[in-house]
Every structure is written in C-alpha cells, then in structure tokens.
C-alpha cells in the first residue's frame, strides 16, 4: 500500500464524508462550503455561495471567511480526495466540525446542484490592472472585488472630479454620480473632469464622457437630480460606498442620515480656501465606533450663524488633493485593507503643506448613530449656506 493510500484510509476514518445533497442541506443550514480547487478549475464553475479559497493559501485565508471555529465546514475539491487532506488541515487549525464532500465538484455538477461560473479577470483586465495585481494588498481577488463594486459620488465638482477619475481608473465597476448643475467656465480652474467643449452640459453628462473615455468598460450611472428625503434611499440603495463631495450643508445632513440608516460608509471631504478635511463616517465599522456627522454638528446652524452664501475662493488644486484622498479611502474600504479614517479627521493646510490628524469625539447619545437608536426621520433643511463650494 502506498503512503498516500494509507493516509487516505486514515483520513476517511477521521473526517466525515457527506454527499453533495447533504452538503447542500448543511450549507443552507449555515455551514461554510469551502472550495479548495485551483483557480483554473474554479473558473469552470463553483458551487453557489462557496468560499473559493484554493488549497495553497487555505490556512492563511480561511479565518477571514470562517471566523467561528465551531461553524460547520464542508470542504470540496474536484473528486473528493484533496478535500480530505484540506479538511484535515482545517481540523488541525482548530475547526471542530469539518466534513468532506464525497465525489467533489464533478458529482455536485452531475447531480444538478447549484453552481455558478465565477467572474475572473480576462487578459485585457490583467494587463490594464497589472500594477494593482502586483500589489499583495490588491492582487487578482482585490481587483475582482473592485470590478464588482458600486460607488456613488455626490457632486461632480472639484472633489468628485479626481475621485471619480481615479475610481474609474482603478477599476471600480459601477460609478454613480448625483449632480444637477451644468458645467460653467469657472469650474475649469479645478474640475478636471470637465472641459472647454462641455461647458453648458449637465455635469453628469460631461462626467460620463470623461470617465468612459478613460475606461470604456465602466458602468456609469448618471443621477441628474437634486437629492432630497424622497429620493435619497432609492438612489443610495445598491451602492457599497457613498462619497460626499457636496458643497451644500443641507445635502450633507441628508447624506449622513441616509448612510447611518442604511449602514453605508460615508467618505466625507470638505474644502475651504486653502484648507481641507477628510474623514470616514461609518458608525458600524469595527471597534472604532467613529460616530457620524451629527456627532460633530448635531444640527445645521441657524441662518444668521450660517456662513455667507457668496462663493468662496479655492486654490485650484486643493479639492484635487482632497478628492484623491477620498478615492484612497473608498478603495481601502472596498478592498478591506489598511485602516480607514474612521474616528479620525485628516486636516490639510495647503499653504503650510501640512497634514494633521484629529480625533473625532463620538456622541454616545447621538439620536442618529447611537447603538439601538430608532431612526428619527429625515429633515429637508432649507438651503443652509456653507461657503465650502469646491
């Protein structure tokens, strides 16, 4: 008897084997189905809802997919042999309920169990995103995540110009933009999405042209409208991240409230003359409990305290830098890498070329984001002027 056969016989005694039918029932009851086949095998099809971890990095990646050691796991390979070895490795890591699917994917498929052909990068995408795929933090899996992501930007102005440009370049699959303005000559000093020959067009149309020219595979969704309480949830739904590049305080409250209610990360930036600020409001994120915009500013200022309605000056490149920083935060959130700017506010003083970081104080009694809060409802504030036009 060869060593591998002896070992397999041992494994069959220690690892319970289940049929595809039983595995499917277990998956429906909450078990994790882990597909340990190679990328080229998975490309041909893989059970719906499976964690496609492969074998080579299995031990390194499994905890992210299955954090609970007591969650039942069913392991699949092509024919039911490699899955026994993989199941043993998972047992050794401390997983307590590990099973192997007898007959593997070929039997699963023959019996007509549900599977899908996962999206993989084609040769063109591999070339286009080569500089990302080289990065351990992104890789092919990360790039696929970006291609399947949906990001909504509010405002196609100074902030939205660079952030949408870079998100489209980086390969975010779907980009939505909300704006109801038209391109004006005075925008061109900083809003690099637009150009001389799109002056007078709706900004979302000008944006669509620029972004599709950069990346014709992009799915661009134009929302040429003004956000209010009646349309905010319908517009936001389906997006993974919201990017606040608005120049309008009333809209900023609306974005905050909808993001808190819908559990969406809100990547916020604002620019005033030579200064800018950036943070991520995302109360649901991890241990930070970073709070929301209303923790800092519970209500808009009364009209007599509000900043003047006159348009403020801005150094052309300022919103560019801030908008790019927003794009970085969006990509980090989508890729789940690094540490998002939750609970911290980055302040950028362009004149001194200085960045400082401030801690954001969370209001434990915030009626919007405190734990267990019942949503207080939307407020359609009358236009509150804030001279943060970017």
């Amino acid at each position, binding site marked *: 008897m060869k060593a591998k056969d002896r070992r397999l016989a041992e494994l069959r005694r220690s690892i319970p084997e289940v049929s595809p039918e039983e595995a499917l029932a277990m998956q429906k009851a909450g078990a994790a189905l882990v597909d340990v086949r190679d990328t080229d095998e998975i490309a041909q099809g893989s059970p719906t809802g499976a964690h496609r971890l492969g074998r080579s990095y299995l031990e390194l990646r499994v905890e992210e997919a299955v954090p609970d050691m007591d969650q039942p796991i069913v392991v699949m390979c092509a024919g039911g042999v490699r899955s026994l070895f993989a199941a043993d490795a998972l047992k050794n890591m401390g997983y307590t309920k590990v099973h192997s699917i007898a007959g593997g994917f070929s039997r699963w498929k023959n019996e007509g169990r549900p599977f899908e052909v996962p999206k993989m990068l084609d040769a063109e995408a591999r070339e286009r995103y080569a500089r990302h795929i*080289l990065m351990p933090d992104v890789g092919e899996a990360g790039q696929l995540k970006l291609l399947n992501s949906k990001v909504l930007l509010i405002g196609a102005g100074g902030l939205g110009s660079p952030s949408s440009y870079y998100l489209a*370049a980086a390969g975010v699959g779907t980009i939505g933009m909300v704006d109801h303005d038209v391109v004006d000559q*005075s925008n061109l000093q900083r809003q690099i999405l637009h150009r001389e020959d799109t002056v007078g067009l709706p900004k979302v149309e000008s944006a669509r042209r620029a972004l599709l020219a950069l990346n014709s595979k992009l799915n661009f969704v134009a929302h040429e409208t003004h956000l209010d309480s009646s349309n905010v949830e319908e517009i936001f739904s389906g997006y993974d991240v919201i990017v606040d590049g608005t120049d309008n305080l009333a809209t900023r409250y609306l974005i905050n409230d909808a993001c808190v209610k819908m559990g969406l990360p809100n990547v916020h930036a604002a620019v005033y003359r030579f200064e800018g600020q950036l943070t991520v409001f995302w109360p649901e994120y991890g241990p930070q409990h970073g709070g929301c915009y209303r923790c800092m500013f519970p209500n808009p200022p009364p009209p007599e305290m509000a900043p003047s309605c006159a348009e403020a000056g801005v150094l052309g490149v300022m919103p560019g830098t801030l908008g790019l*920083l927003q794009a970085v935060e969006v990509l980090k959130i989508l890729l789940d890498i690094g540490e998002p700017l939750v609970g911290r506010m980055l302040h950028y003083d*362009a004149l001194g070329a200085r*960045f400082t970081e401030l801690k954001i104080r969370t209001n434990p009694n915030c009626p919007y984001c405190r734990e267990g809060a019942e949503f207080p409802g939307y407020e359609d504030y009358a236009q509150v002027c804030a001279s943060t036009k970017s």
Partner: protein
Amino acid sequence: MTERFDDAQLTRYSRHFLLKGFGESEQAALRSARVLLIGLGGLGGVAALYLAAAGVGDLTVCDHDAVELSNLQRQIIYGDADLGTAKTEAARSRLEGLNPDVLVRTIDQRLNGDRLVDAIEHADLIVDASDNFETRYALNRTCFRVGKPLVYGAAIGTAGQAAVFVPGNGTGCLQCLFDPEQDDPERDCHSAGVFAPLTGIVGSIMAGEAIKVLTGFGTSLAEHLLTLDARDMRMRRTLRPREPGCPICGTGG
C-alpha cells in the same frame, strides 16, 4: 491690472481671485510662468492637468513613451482611445481641451546632456515626475547648476513623498536625501506595483507646490520632506536632512 485678463479668464480663474492673497498679480505670475515637466506618468499627468487648469501659461511636457493599457489604471490624463499614441501628444490634446490659454510644448524623447541644460535654462521651474533615479539625479544636478527650483515627488506601492528644492536657500538637494550608491534600481512600479490614487495625490501636491513657488504664495515644501502612506493615511512633514559636503549643493545648498 484688470485689463490684463479678459472676461472669460476672469470667470475661469474667479475662484483664485476670491482667495485672500491670490490676486491678479499671482494669476499673472502663473500665466507668464514657463514650467518644464519631466515624465507624463501617474505623477506627471495629474500635475500637468492641475497646472493647466490653474493657468500656467507655458507648459513643456517631456516623455518618450506611448500610452499602454497598464497605464490607464492610474494615468487619468489618457483614455482607451489614446493607446499606442505618444504620451506627449495625448497629453497635449487633453490639456488644450481643459484650458486653451495654455501653450503646451512637447518633447518626445529622453533629455540629457546639453539638451537637458537647454530645457532647464528655458524654464522657470522644473517638475520631476520621472520614474527612475538616473533622471532624478540628472535633473537635481542640472537644476542646482543652472539655479532653477525643482519640485520633486515619488510614489511606489502605497508610499509617496514630495519636496521642493531651491538652489541657494541652504536646505539641501535630492542627493542629500538619497545615496545614489545605495538605491535599489530594481524597486520600481513595474515590480512593486502602485496604488492608483496615490500617484494622483502626490501629483496634485506637486502641482500645488509648483503654484506656490511660482506665485510666492504660502509656504512651500522648500525645507521639508512630506511623506505619506496611503494604506493607513498617515502623513508626516519632516525637516529635510542636508549634507554639508554634498557634491551637488555644496555646503548645504
């Protein structure tokens, strides 16, 4: 002074004119400025866009590459239709489309020797957006010899940095920061990758620094090195080291 800008220009740059300390003379300084920008990749492309948008009058862009598919992950100045076109030509049409007031000149070859000296002498400020140390050191050396300010930036992986070197101000040069003997020529974007928006952040900061140097507005990074890590979004501004015995900037520049 008003007659120096026509109505369209007054509108175009209105957000500059609203800034305290940034008036028509600062805008005029930009208009009469000649900037030489070396390298039209991730850093140079975005720097060029913001310099053109801000109204720099005479912009010379230098690169000898053509647009490749793998550039488009971060080089937003180009698009799918530019694949295979010389970067300088693609950039020229994009920049003129953004601001027809800008005179865009192109140099479609690697500059060295006398041609590099000529190009630097012709410019008021040099933006180093190149992707290799050989070019960086040559630019640094020549800028200090000719006496022209140099805006430097670099990005790799998730890390970036930027600085401004001004000959004669005693705050050192690029070579005080790095030792040419110890650089790892293998470590570049081709092997290490680069996070798409990072190049844009550094490029936009470089454009901002160039505008400050050209207009005398604000405080530039003339004594400091700005370093940032996009992974955790940490930024630091540190006083630059200077080498009193530096062969390029002499006793500390």
